[in-house]
């Protein structure tokens, strides 16, 4: 690199070119992987027949079924998020702020539904409360009735099951804010003469209100983007939402209509996320967050202590243990609906699954996809985060935003983008495993950028500079200092991408093809075709893997990440 006179020029010498090479490569990948496909969705939605038009949107709004699906999506998600808000906030208050026993265990149990894939949860809930479900049967036996007074295949059923999988989001955000709330605010209120209840009402809740709203909006986005629950419960109830309508439109296939609905879905979710970010900023503006999670003072519930404790226990059991137990029970029953007795138990469904080539293939496919998705997103995310957080390069900040943007794009929309972008020359990925990889990369890039950014921010730049001053070049500094230091964060982040990618459904169900099934697709198709028990057996295997994965994450991150 030296010029003849032994001097180094500025560009060559500062190893800046090396970073620019990395950055340029990542930038090109980001444009190819993220920007190009997403642009296609938007463009396609405005094309009909020969030219640009709003015809596809007119079709959405003029066809009452499509319009109803949009409306259904919005009100179903709104109702869900209100229930999630009430449940999540009160549970957070009880678990973080009061003197009920076993708080740590309860907290973990309440977070568990977060780890259970919603579509597997939906299957479990039909096994419990469906017309022939365990609880329904028990009710019928108990009261000798012909039918049960509830129906899980209904809008109410969808909303309740959805709320079950969205309340942990509110719980996490609110309990986080509560944990960091300076206790002196509440103490001041008590000293001013307010009792525990009034303090909660007038001081605590208003102070964490931004977090409550932020959590609720996240729940809204989660609900409106979900496919598994409305698909498994909604078709029978003739209740269609945008995600299931898009699925049907793609089966016809009516691509322009699908893209128009996809854009509407993305706009709704994006708007909700935009407001959510405002609220999040609002919370940090209240300088009540002291950064310490020391909580010496809790509210004494007195005679309400045990009743509330049992209520929280009941909710957490129903949210976590009961669905998993029902899944396991179903997977070992001879046939679905068989009376529960020893002679009706069998492992034949497991042995069937292990011998089923499709299941083995799906397991392998999901594993390959999840490994590659986690590895590639973490590598690219680390580069972008490093360049924007540490090297403070302006171009990297732009990439940071581009990489985080898909967070606001529902999975269904990403899948459509993939079909549009990768099913024609020059790059034909449709019909192969790799189109799902492309989708996973878009979907999980924000996860990776967020975790790598957080990890890198904890590492003071002087640690790197010290290495440079010790004589290490940029690459050596990366290898000896930066990478070893962020390793635990990278591993935890890797697993945090691996786990949801491993059991992904919403995108895979639109992108899979013969021979390229994923675990999520196999479970969904099995359940959909009436092979409940095979679905249950695979689900049980997946749940086991998720639990093990979680334990590993906790170990690696020393309790920082995971449940």
């Amino acid at each position, binding site marked *: 690199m030296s010029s003849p006179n032994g001097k180094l020029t500025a560009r060559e010498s500062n190893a800046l070119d090396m970073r620019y090479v990395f950055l340029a490569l990542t930038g090109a990948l980001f444009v190819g992987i993220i920007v190009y496909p997403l642009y296609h969705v938007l463009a396609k939605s405005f094309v009909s027949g020969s030219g640009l038009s709003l015809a596809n949107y007119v079709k959405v709004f003029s066809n009452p*079924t499509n319009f109803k699906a949009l409306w259904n999506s919005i009100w179903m998600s709104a109702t869900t998020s209100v229930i999630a808000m009430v449940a999540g906030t009160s549970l957070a208050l009880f678990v973080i702020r009061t003197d009920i026993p076993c708080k740590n265990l309860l907290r973990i149990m309440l977070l568990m539904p977060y780890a259970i894939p919603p579509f597997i949860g939906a299957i479990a809930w039909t096994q419990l409360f*469906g*017309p*022939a479900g365990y609880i329904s*049967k028990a009710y019928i036996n108990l009261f000798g009735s*012909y*039918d049960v007074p509830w*129906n899980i*295949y209904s809008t109410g059923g969808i909303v309740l099951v959805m709320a079950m999988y969205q309340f942990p989001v509110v719980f996490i955000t609110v309990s986080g804010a509560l944990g960091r709330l300076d206790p002196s605010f509440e103490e001041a209120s008590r000293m001013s003469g307010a009792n525990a209840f009034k303090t909660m009402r007038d001081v605590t809740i208003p102070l964490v209100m931004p977090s409550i709203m932020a959590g609720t909006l996240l729940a809204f986005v989660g609900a409106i983007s979900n496919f598994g629950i409305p698909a498994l419960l909604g*078709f*029978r109830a*003739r209740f269609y939402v945008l995600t299931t309508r898009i699925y049907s439109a793609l*089966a*016809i*296939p009516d691509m322009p209509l699908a893209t128009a609905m996809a854009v509407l879905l993305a706009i709704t979710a994006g708007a909700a996320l935009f407001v959510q970010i405002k609220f999040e900023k609002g919370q940090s503006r209240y300088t009540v967050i002291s950064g310490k999670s020391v909580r010496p003072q809790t509210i004494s519930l007195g005679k309400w202590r045990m009743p509330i404790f049992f209520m929280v226990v009941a909710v957490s059991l129903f949210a976590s243990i009961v669905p998993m137990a029902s899944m396991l029970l179903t997977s070992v029953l*001879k*046939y*679905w*609906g*068989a009376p529960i007795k020893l002679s*009706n138990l069998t492992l034949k469904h497991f042995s*069937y699954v292990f011998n*089923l*080539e*499709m299941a083995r293939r799906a397991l*392998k496919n999901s*594993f*390959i996809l999840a*490994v*590659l998705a986690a*590895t590639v997103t973490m590598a690219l995310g680390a580069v972008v985060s490093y360049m924007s957080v540490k090297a403070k390069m302006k171009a990297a900040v732009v990439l940071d935003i581009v990489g985080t943007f898909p967070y606001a794009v529902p999975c269904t929309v990403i899948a459509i983008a993939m079909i549009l972008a990768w*099913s024609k020359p020059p790059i034909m990925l449709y*019909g192969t495993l790799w189109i799902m990889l492309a989708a996973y990369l878009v979907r999980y890039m924000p996860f990776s950028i967020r975790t790598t950014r957080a990890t890198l921010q904890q590492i003071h730049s002087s640690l790197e500079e010290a290495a440079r001053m010790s004589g290490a070049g940029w690459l050596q500094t990366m290898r000896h200092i930066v*990478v070893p230091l962020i*390793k635990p964060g*990278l*591993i935890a982040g*890797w697993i945090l991408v691996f786990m949801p990618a491993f059991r992904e459904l919403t995108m895979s169900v639109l992108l899979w*093809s*013969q*021979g390229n099934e994923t675990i999520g697709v196999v479970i969904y*198709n*099995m359940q*959909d*075709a*009436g*092979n*409940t028990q*095979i679905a249950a057996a695979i689900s049980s295997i997946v749940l086991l893997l998720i639990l093990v994965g979680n334990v590993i994450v906790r170990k690696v991150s020393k309790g920082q990440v995971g449940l």
Partner: protein
Amino acid sequence: MLRRTLMVVIASLFLIGIVFAASAAETIVLYTSVPIELATKFADEFMKEYKDIKLEVFRAGSTDVINKIWAENEAGGIKGDVLWLADAAAYYTFRDKGLLLAYKSPEATNVPMELKDPNGYFTGARIINMIIGVNTSLIKDKSKVKTWADLLAYGKKAAMANPLYSGSNFMVTATFVKNSGGWLWFEDARKKEMQVLRGNADVARGLAAGEFAVAMVLDYMVNDYKKQGAPVEIIWPEDGTISIPSPVAIISVTKKVAASKCFIDFVLSRKGQELMVKDGVLPVRGDVAPPAGMPTLDKIKLMPIPFEWAAENTTMLRETFEKKVMY
């Protein structure tokens, strides 16, 4: 970390390599709507018989398979080699569009004329009967359920599969509409909130579990549950069973004609038909005995199926059903 990640990546690449290496034997792909358990069992037996052929099964509802075929045809080539659906009408359309390869299997001589295409474009491979299934623990007196109309009395506790998804139910829909000259039965079903599930396996499962008291469902599925001890019975409707000859065919663009023919031969062979009988399915060959407790076709009152009419009116039938029942 880097090294470990690298190792994982290399391991994955190896796995991918193994997949490709394993596919060195000639592979044919079966597009089918036959329930997955049956289809895989069948594939295993086939591969035992023909050791140098690998059979991959793509299984979905008839409609999904049909959509896939049209889409792939548009995109420059169907990826499947052999086809086995319940929607017999679709074969007429496929034949007319030139998507099927004519093949008169030597085994087909044992299949009655009315179950196969005269030119050999497709051959009936199993007979599946749409019947009324009852759950005997919910309906003590079976004699109450005699005709298709009796199903409607059970409201939410009655079920059928969705013809927009299931091929056999599409045939039922076409037959009902053609024979009765209208949609009355379906309109009534919608009014009384009869449950419309996706596939017949889903319906059978619900019937066995007691989710439904009665159902329009396929005979062999009820038989299967009955064998496992579920409280279910078949009722042969007095106004007629819809008996569908679920045909097999070879896709015209296949590059593996010989292997595909082997599959057709195997399905129609005595051994293949006996395999199906074991799972409670009626055989197409006269020289294979029907499953125990199942009547032969000549003992059942049948409803005539308008195959060609159904093929011509597919879109109208689907759209009307969707409008009248699904919303």
